[in-house]
């Protein structure tokens, strides 16, 4: 596929949120991940819904706004061993059917609060219940892990929420804590 056309198509898939600069590696990487994992528009919408359930944007920006669905896919594509990657894709492709079967509604149909309840219910099930629950739990667990990893190392989080200092300039070994001060994460 011609790269530019492919990027245009990706832009369509992601609802036009992705701009098409001449070299945006995140968009290009996401595209590779979409292609390699065989992700359809519907899968992509499902994943976006789920990262938004994980971080809905009540106290912080929502996961979708930070494109965590793309980050999750890039990590699944590039950093999971083959077997886990296959399980992840299987989980993604089956999650809405599973949710509909078990809870009568898909993530797509649920509001964030109810979505979070469904997420918790799935994760709380005994793993020995059946194979499909195991696959769903694996998928949701992996998605949450990558979404959190990407979110907490995002520019937004590390500048506005928990500032990261590239150049701390020093080190103090014993600093008395003051009640009012924010926690020093020393990132």
């Amino acid at each position, binding site marked *: 596929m011609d790269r530019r056309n492919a990027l245009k198509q990706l832009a369509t898939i992601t609802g036009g949120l992705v701009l098409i600069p001449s070299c945006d590696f995140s968009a290009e990487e996401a595209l590779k991940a979409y292609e390699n994992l065989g992700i359809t528009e519907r899968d992509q919408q499902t994943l976006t819904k789920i990262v938004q359930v994980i*971080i809905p944007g009540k106290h912080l920006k929502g996961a979708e706004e930070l494109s965590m669905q793309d980050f999750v896919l890039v990590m699944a594509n590039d950093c999971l061993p083959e077997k886990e990657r296959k399980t992840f894709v299987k989980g993604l492709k089956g999650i809405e059917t599973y949710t509909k079967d078990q809870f009568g509604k898909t993530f797509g149909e649920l509001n964030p609060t109810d979505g979070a309840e469904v997420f918790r219910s799935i994760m709380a099930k005994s793993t020995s219940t059946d194979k499909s629950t195991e696959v769903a739990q694996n998928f949701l667990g992996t998605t949450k892990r990558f979404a959190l990893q990407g979110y907490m190392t995002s520019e937004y989080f590390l500048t506005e929420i928990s500032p990261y200092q590239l150049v701390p300039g020093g080190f103090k070994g014993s600093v008395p804590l003051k009640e009012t001060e924010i926690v020093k994460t020393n990132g």
Partner: protein
Amino acid sequence: MANLNTQHKQNNTYDAIVIGSGMSGGWAAKELTEKGLKTLVLERGREVQHMKDYPTTNKYPWEFEHRGQIPEDVQKENPIVSRCYAFREDAQHFFVKDTEHPYVQEKPFDWIRGYQTGGKSLLWARHVQRWSDYDFEGPARDGFAVDWPIRYKDLEPWYAHVEKFVGVSGNRDGLPHLPDGEFLPPMELSAVEEYFKSFVSKNYQGRDVIIARCAHITGNEEYYAKQGRTLCQHRVLCQRGCPFGGYFSSNSATLPWAMKTGNLTLQHHAVVHSIIYDEAKGKATGVKVIDANTKEETEYYAEVIFLNASALNTNLVLLNSTSNRFPEGLGNDNGLLGKYIAFHNYRAGVSGEYEGLMEYTTEGRRPTSAYIPRFRNLFKQETDFLRGYAAGFSGSRGIERDLSDVGERLEKGMISPKYGTWRVGSHMMGETIPKEESRVSLDPKKTDEWGIPLLKVDVGYDDNDEKMVKDYLEQVTEMFEAAGFTNIRTRDDHRAPGLDIHEMGGVRMGKDPKTSLLNKWNQLHAVSNVYVTDGACMTSTSTQNPSITYMAMAARAVDHAVKEKGK
């Protein structure tokens, strides 16, 4: 034709050749060029210029596609280097990939290499503890290897010389077994480290906890400004290359310094095939080099040759330098070349928590740790194993966030970090005993793409190492428990030798040419104009991180070579 040859020979002739631009080669180059010798440094890898070639140095965490992680396919293709703690997305370009430079493992051995200007000096952990006579006298006292031909007093002025230029932050602790040096102000211990230090000194006679001496600039700025370096900024991103020159590397310090003399020629992509020996003259006359890219062969000539290719590659070069006089490798009259390889045992660690000092935390970041100098079998033999171990120690305040839920509650967890207990940890750095069967040799059949035989590595643990791991775990656990640390966990990861990146020996120093390869000045006994001053020269390993000792030996050997030349 004869004229052309003469011309070629003149163009390719230097006063000195240094093989390798890493930690010790950089020092040889600096000292040689400062003393006025036209010096050629041969580096097998690509050029990495200070600052200019540190592509990731100012990147924020979010600018890394996988947030630091190495992708699965790269790990699968390169299992050896992937086991190295520093092989991450931000520094991967400074490591040799397994597939690029294969070697043969008779036993599992993780050989971690950096082929570029500066070698592994860009990537090192920067601990610089001096040796003492409790280290140099080890083999003679305990009856292993051979006696070192030097003692602390031989190296002391050279440690001082090297430390001053490198920039060493440290505290003057007054320990006989870990001598003080030319120190810049020490970095601070954290509150829990201070507590453990005072607890140990009150309760364990002969055991100490100190701040590690590390190769970071913490003072005397005007002096280091002359090198174009400045104060360490505590970024703790050292492995990317430091734009401040806050830590020492060949790239930031010795090589630019040597370049300023006008006497340095630094050549890259120069794979050394062998050292050329002239039987009539009874000495080495030059080096045969293969261009890494074109595979073209060139010879370079010099009166003195410094071999600093990194411990195992130095063995390889000598083993591959065969002639009528030395059919088994240059200087190898006794058949011991490549033998008595040793390393540091880094297998074990202990971690725990401390629930005291809850009213304190730390601020900023620190590119080093506390250090527990060797206390076992130090002044006399006291256990059922030989020698001992040093240990790293560090403690910082834990930060906890409740990330167990999803949705709104997860967001609350993300924005509500709380101070947890102090987290403490230690890792062992054990001395290993060099043995004849621990060796490297040339594969009789397999060669690399430059036609050089692959190195076969046959190095493993022994019973002494097993006993030492057990003792380390017992002693540190006991000290942690006594200090009131909780949730103590021990680990023995059974990592392969080599991952410590402190492989040493094979061309050991000694008094007797029958039982060693190098004399007390690091010259090959049999070929006096070849000096070996990297890890290959080590007769025993002791426990200290070895780089500062290699650097001191390199500077001392250059001084000797130049004085010899004047005679």
